């Protein structure tokens, strides 16, 4: 689905990357621990959507180094101005939704978005 579909499904506010709403997003994953993000991205998460409640600059740097497609902040958490500046500079679209993480993931999954990997330890991680 396109980033704009995700935005509509979750009634999300687009904070940066308004011009990237046509970006195709096929995979997603949810994590608050940045080491989890890095570990999942190990096998490739190019262009994936990261669903997170982690509100640090590091989540944006992390997204940059592993080439994520966008970051979606859940539970109505709003990034700081300097986080927005950093994301703008790095060209990473940021969205925020009031839905909790569980609802966010469920709604996206229901509409066909798949996880980057299914589980660890099965050789695909």
């Amino acid at each position, binding site marked *: 689905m396109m980033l704009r579909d995700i935005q509509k499904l979750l009634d999300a506010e687009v904070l940066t990357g308004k011009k990237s709403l046509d970006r195709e997003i096929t995979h997603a994953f949810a994590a608050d621990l940045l080491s989890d993000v*890095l570990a999942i991205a190990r096998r490739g998460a190019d262009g994936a959507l990261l669903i997170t409640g982690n509100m640090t600059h590091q*989540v944006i740097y992390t997204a940059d180094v*592993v080439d994520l497609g966008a970051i979606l902040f859940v539970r109505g958490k709003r990034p700081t101005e300097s986080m927005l500046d950093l994301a703008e500079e790095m060209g990473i679209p940021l969205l925020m939704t009031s839905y909790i993480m569980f609802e966010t993931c469920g709604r996206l999954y229901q509409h066909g978005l798949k996880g980057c990997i299914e589980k660890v330890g099965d050789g695909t991680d």
Partner: protein
Amino acid sequence: MEQIEERYPFYKTFHIEGGNFLNAGSISSQVKRILKEEGFPNHVVRRISIATFEAEMNVICYARWGILNLVVFPDFIKVAIDDEGVGIPDVELAMKEGFSTADERIRELGFGAGMGLSNIKKVTDEMLLTSVVNQGTHLEFVIHVKERVE
């Protein structure tokens, strides 16, 4: 091809300031850009970036300062990090997934889950970690490049 050979190896040095959490990750971001511009394949850039990110965070979390050296050869990339800090008393234990000495501040950032060093091990081809308690830590890792994007 000859021209490419002449340009290598090249290296770049970065200074890491311990405790500077705001910019944590910025060096990894620069390393990624350098390697992308050099035309290394995405999976190579991704692995180096992930390992560098974890290593950069370790210096910021546990050391007063550190130096990161990126060395780029046509067929392999090496990153070496030396820091002055608390060091690691038991390197083998520190390598275990889940083992962590991180404080609350580090955990609030979403780090300190005890996965960093094992993440580095998993994405690199060679890894060497040595440490002297209350002096510092030396970490280096290598990733081989099997193909290049021309």
